[in-house]
């Protein structure tokens, strides 16, 4: 695909949790909890302060009365700020420090004062009814001539437990929000920029790792298409595919538009009750429904069922809109007969509605009210097909296709957070911020300076255990041994189903030192570490798994083994070394270095031969 030709433009908005000790506006720890551990709950309504224009009509009043009562789970690790029972603490200086560091890494310009804003969110995910957010720096550069437009610091929202129940453990964890300009021209470029930004963030060593700690939103448009924002891409590996599929979708919609115009297609918006058509249907869905409504899309035949993205058709888009009314989906004639609907029923349906061979018919089955609502949405979306691509916020589906979520946000309802004083960022402070070595640079240095091979160097640099590696090296452990031990032990533990947290950095360092001092064999490292991870102290683990085996003991052992095989050795001479070595190693593997065994055995054989 020639992405330049079609005019692809893509931008990123990356949200990354910061690994500070405390939250952004309170002193609670930034730990995620199991919702079963909650120790309390509070229930709250949220209401939108009316604007000056607001009028108290019957509908508004009804809406207020029907407000939902949200329930929030609290924990022994959360406090009053999370449940909006206390003014927020000042902006966490550690979080600001991380954000400024990242801003500096992108060569951005910090704002002289940080003003915290409230961004209204009344879906229940913020107990206060707003999310606190502040712009920190503007206009930075990324390689490939891409730009970071803004960097902001903001607080995480609650995690939804189910329905109207939220968990406040996540609320308030600091996030950095990095917004790029729409500077990417190909799907791979989007991947590379996202990866580069992620790597830059991780280079600070001060961001959270693991699933859910980073979320990428992608903005995509092509010439003749429209800006579409795809929310919450969590896996970097999918990001290019998401862009590719969005391009495909936009191209398909444009093609459909052209075909519709060519066909003089038309949506007249008339809705018919076709319940009687299906009076004796065998379709489970239609049988259950109280009402079945139908509409004719003139000139749409074949287009509703056209695939626009893997697994997605124009019909799917219509269905997304319909689902907002609470119906399960729709049926269209491009896919019928199917799902228990017979050819005869389709025939009667088309006849009844006067649909011609070029027309498509859409039916929806549910309650009267939901069906009417859904039909309006379907007709709205059908009419949009004549425009091509609608501006939308979409959510990613498994595999990288997307579904409609909501229209693009309007002007954010933002107003100042009066509980937080502005935080000045002085020139002295900005100048004092040190930027860390990028992980990519580090990986190269590991090759040149420490002699790691390129793969291991990269793996080590990008590992969560990087700090441990750097500590080990600084404490005098040979870098190759350190890297090999750390990476292997992580792999081994994960294979054994043991959490890497079970093994303290101190233990790993201690084991490596034991080996380097010759008090345990390299071969035993993994066994020792596994024992430590299961709760044994390092010294216990060394003496149990790999009890020290002295040269004298080895000499005795070798002496015995050699005596037993005297004839064989005499027969074979020096060639016996190999086989006998095998016998000895079987006894002492991991308890004494193979080099020593070889020496002792050599001596012993020398004595005999």
């Amino acid at each position, binding site marked *: 695909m020639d992405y330049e030709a079609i005019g692809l433009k893509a931008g990123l908005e990356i949200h990354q949790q910061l690994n500070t000790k405390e939250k952004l506006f309170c002193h609670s720890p930034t730990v995620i909890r199991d919702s079963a551990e909650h120790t309390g709950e*509070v*229930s*709250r*309504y*949220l*209401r*939108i*302060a*009316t*604007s*000056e*224009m*607001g*009028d*108290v009509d019957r509908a*508004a*009043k009804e809406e*207020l*009365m029907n407000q939902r*009562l949200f329930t929030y789970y609290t924990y022994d690790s959360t406090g*009053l700020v999370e*449940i*909006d*029972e*206390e*003014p927020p603490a000042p902006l966490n200086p550690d979080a600001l420090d991380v954000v400024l560091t990242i801003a500096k890494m992108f060569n*951005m*310009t910090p*704002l*002289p*004062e*940080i*003003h915290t*804003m*409230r*961004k*209204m969110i*009344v879906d229940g995910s913020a*107990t*206060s*009814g*707003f999310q606190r*957010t*502040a*712009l920190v*720096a*503007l*206009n930075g550069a990324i390689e490939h001539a891409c730009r970071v437009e803004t960097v*902001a610091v903001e607080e995480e929202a609650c995690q939804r437990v189910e329905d109207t129940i939220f968990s406040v453990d996540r609320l308030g964890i600091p996030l950095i929000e990095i917004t790029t300009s729409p500077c990417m021209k190909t799907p791979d470029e989007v991947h590379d920029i996202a990866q580069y930004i992620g790597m830059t963030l991780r280079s600070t060593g001060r961001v959270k790792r693991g699933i859910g700690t980073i979320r990428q939103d992608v903005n995509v448009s092509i010439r003749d298409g429209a800006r579409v924002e795809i929310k919450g891409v969590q896996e970097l590996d999918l990001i290019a595919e998401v862009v590719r599929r969005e391009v495909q979708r936009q191209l398909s919609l444009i093609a459909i538009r052209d075909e519709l115009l060519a066909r003089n297609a038309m949506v007249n918006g008339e809705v018919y009750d076709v319940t009687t058509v299906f009076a004796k249907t065998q379709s489970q869905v239609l049988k259950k429904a109280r009402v079945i409504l139908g509409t004719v899309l003139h000139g749409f035949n074949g287009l509703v069922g056209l695939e626009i993205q893997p697994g997605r058709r124009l019909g799917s888009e219509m269905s997304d809109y319909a689902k907002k009314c609470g119906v399960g989906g729709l049926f269209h004639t491009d896919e019928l007969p199917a799902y228990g609907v017979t050819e005869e029923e389709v025939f009667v349906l088309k006849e009844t509605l006067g649909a011609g061979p070029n027309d498509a018919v859409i039916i929806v089955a549910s309650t009267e009210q939901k069906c009417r609502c859904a039909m309006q949405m379907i007709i709205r979306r059908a009419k949009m097909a004549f425009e091509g691509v609608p501006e939308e916020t979409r959510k990613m589906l498994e595999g990288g296709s997307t579904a409609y979520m909501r229209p693009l946000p309007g*002007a*954010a*309802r*933002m*107003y*100042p957070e*009066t509980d937080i004083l*502005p935080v000045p960022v002085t020139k002295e402070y900005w100048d004092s911020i040190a930027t860390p070595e990028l992980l990519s640079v580090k990986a190269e240095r590991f090759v040149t300076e420490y002699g790691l091979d390129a793969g291991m160097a990269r793996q080590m640099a990008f590992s969560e255990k990087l700090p441990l590696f750097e500590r080990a090296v600084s404490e005098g452990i040979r870098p190759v041994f350190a890297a090999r031990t750390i990476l292997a032990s992580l792999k081994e533990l994960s294979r054994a189903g043991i959490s890497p947290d079970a093994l303290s950095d101190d233990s790993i360092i201690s084991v490596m030192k034991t080996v380097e001092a010759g008090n345990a064999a390299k071969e035993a490292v993994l066994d020792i570490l596994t024992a430590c991870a299961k709760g044994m102290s390092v010294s216990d683990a060394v003496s149990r798994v790999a009890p020290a085996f002295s040269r004298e003991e080895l000499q005795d052992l070798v002496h015995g083994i050699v005596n037993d095989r005297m004839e064989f050795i005499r027969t074979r001479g020096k060639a016996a070394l190999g086989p006998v070595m095998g016998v000895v190693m079987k006894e002492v593997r991991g308890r004494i270095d193979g080099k020593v065994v070889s020496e002792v055995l050599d001596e012993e054989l020398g004595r005999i031969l």
Partner: protein
Amino acid sequence: MTLNNSDPVSVMFAGIEMDGIFINRSGEHAIVKLSSGYNICVPESFCSPKEKTASVEKPAVLPLKQDASLPLLSIISTGGTIASTVDYRTGAVSSKFTAEDILRSIPELAGIARYHTLQPFQVLSENMNPAMWQELARTIHDEILKGAQGIIVTHGTDTMLYSAAAVSFMLSTPVPIVFVGAQRSADRPSSDNAMNAICSAQAAVSDLGEVVVCMHATESDTMCALHRATRVRKNHTSRRDAFQSIGREPVGGIEYPEGTVVLAKDAVLRGTEELRLSDNLESNCGLLQYYPGMNPAVIDAFKGCKGLVIAGTGLGHVGTDCIASIKGLTTAGTTVVMTSQCQAGNVCDRVYETGRDLLDAGVIEGGSMLPEVALVKLMWVLGNATRKEDIKRLMQTNLKGELEYDLWRCA
């Protein structure tokens, strides 16, 4: 050209140009609201004015009608905000106070009563003083005379308990007088203001006939409590359920959103008292908490005061070396009342030696009165009685639920 609030500006910063509107200045910096909604702070010299776009004409606001069949309540504001609106273009929050504003903000109120609103003065709660309590009591008195069937007083929470107690002592009332406030500001979607206001209106049309404080009963939006004005304390700086009845249960509760009012067996009912204003206060009174190692000179500093309430330790004690200073005050004509910094429970100066010495020094036992309430009551008593024995008798008589019972004066 000087920039004014709401002026469109173009900002040149960090090598890029951005559009926004000017909000205000802070030193040499300008605060500008960007079109994204964010406020940024840049040197004012980086901003240049842009041409104003034609302002959109505001649609006409429909007038609101109150339901004439509902009872009439007076809402008296002393500075607390019961309703706010946010201007989402500039982010400015403004507090609202006409009946119409309130009904627009909290439409549920329209179904409960008709409202007449007044604002005799507007101060921060910590700046309330005895003269304002008198003004407030007179205003309430007038409103009841004019036919209000219940009174809602919106008040900052900081000193609400002092004001509510003062109104209790100054006013006999046949209708409920409900003090209400909010712990979380009215400009946030999670504010307790609307629910508290709705519950206070339910309380004000109920069968109650005394002065109460209406605030959240728990941290959840499910129930408000009605606290007797003379037995309530703000016991948390920020929680919604900060107000608690001390030494007794609340006199009532209101389920939200149902609006059901449940009153305690000993709640004073509507019509029990006749309307009477007795608004003399002697404001030259003080309150002092004793602490170990207190310099007696601190007590001497109250020389010249007409009354002093001491929050002593435990059953009502102070260090022995402070007793002479107290005796000095009583001899000079200051009425000294002993309460306890424990807050709950009775003062009893008969049991221990120090207490007996305090009684000898002329100190009046304050029973179970909260120190803050004892201070307010002392101002009222000294404003209405002059003879020593009358002052003591009144201080030890349960006037408005501040004591559980009249203290016995033994034969």
